[in-house]
């Protein structure tokens, strides 16, 4: 799948990416010829079943893994190590238990040796914005799973990244908390549009959040289609009950079915 090249789509470009683990008999092709171009301030989801290489693709973009072949460029510069203006959120919040919420959010500044005092107001603003204003001095073990993941999002946003990478960030949360955080994330993104690459295996979540969805298939992991989601924003949770929403979900499900990845009861919207 190749996208029409255009200047607005060149913020992040992945071209001809291969990722192979092991050699000989144990050789596993995690990604095969993945090409994707993402524009500035665009919200793109990588959607696919487990084992389709969507997380591997995200880790390559993050500079955490080296692709076997192909190239990744961020704002025209080749990605060979973790880029500077990038924030990352994992499925697990990986908050440090021994630091308060505020200090956890300030961790990127500490690691990058930036002045903590200058960034403190920013961290407090982010906490307010995400509805955890009173929790700055609490410890992670005093928070619920949803609150912890909100803190992890604040941490990723502290240094104002141009690119936000999210690896199934809400995958470990219960359905209601997940809905809440989907709304929250959209709100943050609408207030301060960043380029987001969002990994998920939930079709509904991808449709709800994304401008575009890269649908992936496994063995080998590759992008089989890219879907534009033209639903108006801001999207309310109720949008999931509209015919338009259902049409997008059905279209994606058909793609999966076409690749034999979705059979009857296994379907999860």
């Amino acid at each position, binding site marked *: 799948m190749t996208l029409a090249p255009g200047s607005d789509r060149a913020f992040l470009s992945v071209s001809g990416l291969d990722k192979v683990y092991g050699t000989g008999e144990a050789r596993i092709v995690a990604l095969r010829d993945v090409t994707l171009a993402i524009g500035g301030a665009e919200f793109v989801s990588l959607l696919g079943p487990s084992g389709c290489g969507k997380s591997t693709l995200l*880790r390559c973009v*993050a*500079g*955490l893994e080296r692709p076997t072949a192909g190239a990744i460029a961020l704002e025209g510069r080749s990605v060979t*190590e*973790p880029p500077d203006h*990038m924030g*990352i959120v*994992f*499925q*697990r919040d*990986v908050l*440090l*238990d*021994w630091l308060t919420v505020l200090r956890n959010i300030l*961790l*990127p500044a*500490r*690691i*990058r040796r930036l002045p903590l005092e200058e960034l403190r107001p920013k961290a407090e603003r982010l906490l307010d914005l995400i509805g955890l204003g009173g929790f700055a001095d609490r*410890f*992670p*073990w*005093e928070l619920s799973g949803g609150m912890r993941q909100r803190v992890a999002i604040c941490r990723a946003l502290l240094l104002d990244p141009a690119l936000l990478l999210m690896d199934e960030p809400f995958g470990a949360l219960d359905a209601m908390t997940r809905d809440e955080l989907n709304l929250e994330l959209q709100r943050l993104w609408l207030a301060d549009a960043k380029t987001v690459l969002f990994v998920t295996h939930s079709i509904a979540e991808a449709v709800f959040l994304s401008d575009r969805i890269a649908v992936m298939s496994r063995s080998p992991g590759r992008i089989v289609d890219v879907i534009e989601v033209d639903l108006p924003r801001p999207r309310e949770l109720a949008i999931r009950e509209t015919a338009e929403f259902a049409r997008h979900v059905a279209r994606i499900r058909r793609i999966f079915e076409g690749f034999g990845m979705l059979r009857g009861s296994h379907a999860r919207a």
Partner: protein
Amino acid sequence: MPAPDGNRAAASRRALHVALVVVGFFALWQVAVMLARPPDYLLPAPSAIFAELVTAPLWYLGHALQTIGATLLGFSLALLVGCLAAVGIVYSRVLENTLYTLLVALNSVPKVALAPLFIIWMGTGLASKIAISFLIALFAIVVDSVLGLRSVDPDAVDLFRSLKGGRLQTLFWLRAPNALPHLFSGMKVAVSLALVGAIAGEFVASQAGLGYVILSAQGAFQTTRVFAAIVLLGVIGTVLFFVVDLAERLVCPWHVSHRARHRGEG
């Protein structure tokens, strides 16, 4: 640390429980001795042991301080050397293959058996007791620290990498704090072993310490005095353990809270 009231109540209930059992044990012993009247050189009554301690408190204190000193110095040295060795082992393949392998191999030798060697090398004074205490405590510290430094969440390591955190930053801000709970569980074992090491050293050759008191009293069949020293050792061992436990509560409350929660669920 905002400990939930339930945990605190449970903890004090447990402490009361232990105290009652210990008091009950001594009471039973007292009654048994009063009824069966064994000769003093076989089994003295707890009241006789207490009376023995009270007749020469300063003498016992002096010997106890000697043993406590050897234990604490050996333990502190083991803590310092053990932590440094663990960092070296985790960060260097060479050290892992040499030092760690050697430590594991040496650990299968009962370290008490090495005590006479240290007396030969370092004399019968405090230094040899510290050395034995150190050696016997070292292993627990190294093994648990290595485990703690290694058992970091791979995602957390990736987070640090994504922020271009160097090895030292990852060590100070991630691996070391993450290792603290493991280190403390190693320290709890090590502090008891350090006391064993000090006593073992005093048994082999010494002029002071509770080990010396036990050995010389045994030679004179002063069984009451042997028991007095043993009671003191029990108190010292318990206090040392709880000091480490208290330090853990102060240094890593997050871990203690996890533990309390797990206990609550289980």
